[in-house]
């Protein structure tokens, strides 16, 4: 039960004097609100596990500090920080039963027998582990073992936060859905702060209220799933979230006009003071580019392939050297490979050196 503040946190596994660009975690400041459901999303090696381990105290950061409810916890051990953490692979105590496994964190903290029993039963019920409570944990399947690990993370009511480090990696897909929605239910029922690390956007977007996207050691955007989708602050967010990812195209931008591959596009907002010398790109999600029959005034494209995702179809087209993904409207039929592209101006974003530039109305 705590608000967690990260203040100028940075970490390098080679020590604090290493080259700053090689840091596993670049200087980061952030606040995690009590009771929030957060996801830390990013590809492997982007520093998300490092960040998690710093919060729990497994890793000592090279710089900066972590505050729980305003109190500096840097000198505290993992135990004293009162954090729960669930790891990527199931960790179970082989010699104990399922019930003893769930009770272990409580027993170590000297909680009373009656309270342990009540709490273990509550968690076991939420995770459907009641029938297995008296079985040896080592005899269960990997799925069930990971449920035990989750249960041990959730069993303490008074933890500052529960940290999940890609907890569903070993779970098979059908159960993944179930467990994820269960976590969501648990989050509401238990009023715990949960931080969920994953490289899977679906997992992040379905679990969290707030998604924190990390890239090469820094946080590139924090926001709701909708914000990440509609207004990616960084070209990486656009590319990493969404399937297919955002089209990022080199462009020249002047005021309300953008020029892509020699084609003029009008923008919804005006971009006056773009930093000189910066790499200017425009980004637009494939959902907001639609394919049409080739016509004068439309950006001419050659279709390379069409992916049918069931609910929608996306065309991968080529404009000169540029590759663009575009939505194929229902009922559109084209004669040959030639087509035109229609862009929705409101959803075109302008990026300078990969960062989104806010346009003027």
């Amino acid at each position, binding site marked *: 039960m705590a608000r967690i503040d990260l203040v100028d946190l940075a970490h390098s596994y080679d020590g604090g004097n290493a080259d700053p660009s090689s840091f596993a975690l670049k200087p980061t400041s952030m606040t995690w609100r009590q009771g929030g459901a957060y996801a830390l999303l990013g590809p492997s090696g982007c520093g998300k596990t490092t960040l998690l*381990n710093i919060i*729990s105290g*497994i890793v000592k950061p090279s710089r900066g500090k972590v505050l729980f409810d305003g109190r500096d916890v840097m000198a505290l*051990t*993992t*135990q004293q920080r009162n*954090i*729960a*953490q669930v*790891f*990527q*692979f*199931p*960790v179970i*105590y*082989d*010699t*104990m039963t399922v019930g003893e496994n769930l009770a*272990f*964190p409580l027993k*170590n*903290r000297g909680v009373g027998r009656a309270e342990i029993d009540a709490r273990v039963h509550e968690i076991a019920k939420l995770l459907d582990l009641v029938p297995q409570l008296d079985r*040896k944990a*080592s*005899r*269960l*399947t*990997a*799925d*069930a*073992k990971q449920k035990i*690990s989750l249960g*041990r993370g959730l069993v303490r009511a008074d933890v500052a936060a529960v940290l999940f480090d890609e907890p569903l990696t*070993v779970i098979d897909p059908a159960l993944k859905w179930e467990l994820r929605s269960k976590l969501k239910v648990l989050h509401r029922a238990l009023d715990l702060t949960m931080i969920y690390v994953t490289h899977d956007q679906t997992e992040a977007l379905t679990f969290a209220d707030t998604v924190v996207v990390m890239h090469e050691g820094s946080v590139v955007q924090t926001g709701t799933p909708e914000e990440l989708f509609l207004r990616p602050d960084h070209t990486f967010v656009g590319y990493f979230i969404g399937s297919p990812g955002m089209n990022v195209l080199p462009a020249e931008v002047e005021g309300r006009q953008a020029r892509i591959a020699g084609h003029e596009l009008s923008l919804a907002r005006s971009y006056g003071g773009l930093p000189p010398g910066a790499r200017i790109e425009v980004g637009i999600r494939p959902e907001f580019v639609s394919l049409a029959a080739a016509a004068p005034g439309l950006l001419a494209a050659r279709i390379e392939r069409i992916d049918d995702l069931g609910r929608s179809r996306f065309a991968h087209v080529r404009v000169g050297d540029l590759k663009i993904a575009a939505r194929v409207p229902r009922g559109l039929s084209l004669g040959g490979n030639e087509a035109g592209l229609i862009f929705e101006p409101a959803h075109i974003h302008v990026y300078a050196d990969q960062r989104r530039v806010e346009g003027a109305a």
Partner: protein
Amino acid sequence: MEKIPNQKAWLLVLPVFAIVAFSAVIPLMTVVNYSVQDTFGNNKFFWNGVGWYQELLDPSTELGGRFFASLWRNLAFSGAVLAIQIPLGIIVALAMPREGWGVAFSLVVLALPLLIPWNVVGTIWQIFGRSDIGLMGWGLNRLGFDYNYVANPIDAWLTIIIMDVWHWSSLVALLCYAGLKSIPEAYYQAASIDGASRWAVFTAIQLPKMRHVLVIAILLRFMDSFMIYTEPFVVTGGGPGNSTTFLSIELVKLALGQFDLGKAAAMSIVYMLIIIIVCWVFFTVMTNAGADRKGAGGER
């Protein structure tokens, strides 16, 4: 479908049969042959049936008395050795560094005693313990202890047990260290998050994960200590009196000292059966206890 007979497999199997026959079956049958006959030399044999076995297993006879006395001595020795070396090996393994230059250093230091030939180990301790010129024996006497392994059975036992601990605890430690190294870091992290004490980490994580290597360590140390010959032979020669005469020393006395080949052969067979049965029972019990764990299919 008709199977096509292919006799080529015999070519692959026969060499193995031949090797096993010459290395194990034929020598063993020779011993069996001796154990049911009596011989007075000149290659003359007289059928004795199970006579030697009856005598051997009857503690009231001279042969049976000697056999059981050395058997109990040997069991006591193996028990003492296991009781010291297994806990000591675990403690040493837990204390060993996990990374850095200390790893290689401690591995080399631990491996050193294992590389020394048995009779050299015996000689080292024989001299080390001598009360006139040995550093340990002389030192203990100078400190006021009346230590003399040549005359005092307790001193002789202590010397041999300490020697064996010195020689073989490293093996247990190295095996346990390998077991400890295989525990993923996440287990320790989870334990610290779960608030486990050092003792709880040991009993809930480290000991269960070392189980398999401990089974092997106990088996190896039991067999080795139950068959010990060279070191006590070099240090005490089985004495003082018969106090350190273990089974194999007794056997050699019988076979080569007295040339009682029939009795010695019967004793060899019983000796071998004891070792096989103890190891089989122990191994079966331990692997059965572990087998149903693997049956769940969830073992990572």
